[in-house]
């Protein structure tokens, strides 16, 4: 007894030895289980970087080539590993360069803690060198933000930051730390945050809507499930499968829901949205009970909200109460975490099948195959198509790779034609549609899931927005496999120009550099192909290369993504060609 008291006192003494604020930041990260951080140094964050020098054995810092690269890498890391992504940047431009990634993480619910340096507190508001009001700037795009001006505020601020970032509907948090706070000493003590009285991340499930939902589902003739990223964020993949199988309900995925459920499952009916599959779009407006799980009725999913599932009873299982009745009025709202909600719902459901209803989806698949898919994935002549390359890659990797995409046609082709058959395998910029996201996000994904084969599928436009991160790949030999689908066009914009702007191709054609030589200058093995017959052997050498490698495929210049629901139109009016 006495000895343990002594030990405690000794320990306490050790803990309370004053340390610098900058070191306190790192100790907080270690307390939160962080082992990897992405960042870029600069004046106002230098004290933290100086402390980091002594913590290199405990904290793996990955140096990007631009702060935007660091934050997208942190996003990719978070989404691949399920942990909080941590990003460090300096004040002023360092901080503002994070904004696109923070916004992306906000709309796609990615847990991030961003730590920015700030000028000394006596200089705040004085237009000091590299001073910017990053708290003001990031306010609309963070789940929470806070400025630390004294060292002793650091532990509480960071504890709150991690708690808020990862709990409930995850999101980005920014902590701005003035240089004087980093440079003054304080007594370090860490207490993880477990509760904030104004913040209730996990609502208690209510019984009544659960019973109503069960009744609707049990009595439904044509039930239909649409699941989103909420399933992945709550780790409810198994429960989702149980629900689908027990009640025998055809299920479709949103863009961010992809890989939450195997595309090879007989009850999987495809991917929904603007460029989604024919069946899931059309059947939305024919089902009798529509069950939305962990999704937010994005306009790219719903098209015209007035006609969307208007005939159906809509059940919405959603963690964020502000999403309920936001875009689509629902009949039954289950406000709760997807995993908990499904665990409560499944026992209330009858075992069931809906074979005739499922057959209607299969008939849609047949029509879509005939009118759209076949000519996309098997054009037989002309240049390779994006759809074809993705389809072949999907077969080659058996749908087991972790796929990271950018934004545009290649992204839609991937979501359509990569047949995901492994959980947590799809990372893309969904809500914000951030070109330049892919390369750094893929780097972060590979670092977050080193055991997985991570493939970055990028267009020639998006690649050039963040290609400086090839430097990061070179320095750390991150084994990302990069696939550039090069059509020398900003393809999706060009497609819209063709369909809606009378083929006036205003500034969408691109003259590109030699990507192979470029990769070569970073020491990354690369090859370019354009012939159909070379694709298989190119995959062989590209994917069997140890470490990073790049494959550029020259594809058809004016390929279009079909089917397509034009903006704001009824999903039943989906165009097949």
């Amino acid at each position, binding site marked *: 007894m006495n000895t343990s008291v002594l030990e405690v006192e000794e320990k306490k003494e050790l803990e309370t030895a004053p340390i610098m604020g900058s070191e306190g930041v790192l100790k907080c990260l270690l307390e939160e289980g962080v082992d990897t951080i992405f960042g870029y140094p600069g004046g106002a964050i230098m004290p933290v970087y100086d402390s980091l020098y002594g913590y290199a054995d405990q904290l793996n810092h990955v140096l990007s080539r631009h702060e935007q690269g660091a934050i997208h890498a942190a996003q990719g890391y978070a989404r691949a590993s399920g942990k909080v992504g941590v990003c460090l940047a300096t004040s002023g431009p360092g901080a503002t360069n994070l904004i696109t990634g923070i916004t992306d993480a906000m709309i796609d619910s990615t847990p991030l803690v961003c730590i920015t340096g700030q000028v000394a507190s006596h200089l705040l508001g004085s237009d000091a060198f590299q001073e910017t009001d990053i708290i003001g700037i990031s*306010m609309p795009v963070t789940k929470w933000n806070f400025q630390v001006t004294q060292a002793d505020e650091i532990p509480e601020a960071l504890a709150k930051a991690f708690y808020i970032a990862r709990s*409930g509907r995850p999101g980005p948090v920014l902590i701005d730390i003035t240089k004087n706070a980093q440079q003054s000493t304080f007594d370090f003590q860490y207490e993880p945050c477990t509760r904030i009285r104004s913040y*209730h991340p996990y609502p208690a499930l209510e019984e009544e809507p659960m019973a109503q939902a069960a009744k609707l589902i049990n009595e439904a003739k044509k039930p239909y499930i649409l699941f989103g990223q909420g399933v992945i964020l709550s780790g409810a993949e198994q429960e989702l499968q149980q629900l689908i199988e027990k009640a025998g309900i055809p299920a479709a995925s949103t863009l961010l829901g992809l890989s939450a459920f195997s595309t090879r499952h007989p009850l999987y009916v495809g991917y929904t949205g603007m460029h989604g599959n024919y069946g899931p779009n059309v059947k939305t407006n024919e089902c009798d009970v529509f069950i939305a799980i962990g999704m937010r009725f994005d306009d790219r999913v719903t098209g015209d909200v007035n006609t969307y599932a208007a005939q159906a009873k809509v059940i919405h299982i959603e963690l964020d109460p*502000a999403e309920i009745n*936001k875009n689509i009025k629902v009949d039954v709202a289950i406000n709760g975490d997807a995993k908990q909600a499904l665990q409560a719902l499944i026992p209330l459901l009858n075992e069931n099948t809906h074979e005739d209803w499922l057959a209607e989806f299969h008939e849609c698949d047949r029509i879509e195959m005939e009118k759209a898919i076949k000519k996309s994935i098997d054009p037989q002549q002309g240049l390779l198509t994006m759809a074809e390359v993705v389809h072949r890659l999907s077969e080659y990797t058996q749908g087991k790779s972790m796929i990271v995409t950018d934004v545009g046609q290649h992204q839609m082709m991937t979501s359509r034609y990569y047949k995901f058959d492994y959980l947590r395998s799809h990372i893309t910029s969904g809500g914000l549609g951030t070109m330049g996201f892919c390369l750094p996000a893929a780097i972060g994904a590979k670092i977050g899931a080193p055991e997985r084969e991570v493939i970055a599928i990028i267009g020639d436009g998006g690649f050039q927005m963040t290609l400086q991160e090839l430097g990061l790949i070179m320095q750390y030999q991150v084994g990302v496999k990069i696939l550039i689908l090069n059509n020398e066009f900003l393809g999706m914009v060009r497609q819209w120009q063709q369909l809606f702007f009378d083929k006036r191709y205003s500034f969408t054609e691109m003259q590109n550099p030699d990507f192979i030589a470029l990769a070569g200058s970073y020491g990354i093995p690369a090859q370019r192909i354009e012939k159909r017959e070379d694709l298989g052997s190119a995959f062989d050498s590209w994917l069997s290369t140890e470490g990073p490698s790049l494959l550029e495929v020259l594809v058809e210049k004016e390929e279009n993504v079909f089917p397509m629901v034009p903006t704001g139109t009824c999903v039943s009016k989906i165009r097949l060609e």
Partner: protein
Amino acid sequence: MEEQLYTISILTENKPGLLNKITIVFNRRKINIRSLNVSTSEVSNVSRYTLVVNMTETEIEKVVKQIRKVVDVLGSFYYREEEIYFREIALYKLSYDLYKNNDSLADLLIAHDAKIISTEGDHLVVEKTGSKMETHDLYEALQPYDLLEFVRSGRVAISKSKRRTEAFIHELETSTSNALSIKEF
């Protein structure tokens, strides 16, 4: 759906920066805030924001839910005019000489239930508490008397509900629900 006046009452922790986080919700949707008041509440360290906006019920529900999501916001509620007691205060500056030479002006102030709060120097400051319409009526009535300065506060409002803030905060501290009502308070 028709637009109408709504009063939003928000209970928050007393923290800097929160006002900005709340007004961002309106700014993003290009909603004009007609009046805004921040004060303490009857619970220590809890602030009360009172805003007036003109919106449809569908929109106000969404906005109030978004405000509720802001960390450090304890509660966010909206009311129709008949669900609250509300007042604004207006101050009017007039020339003291004019007042001395005009009996009708004194009668006017009495008729409007307005109070003279200062006669220092050559000025007269009049206070009128009431609805926006009442303070506006006096404003109109004073136009012929060379109104030197006019200012009106934001609305303050108290709901007709019997719930107590203290009890609400206690409920918050013990609850695991985030589905706390945005309608009743």
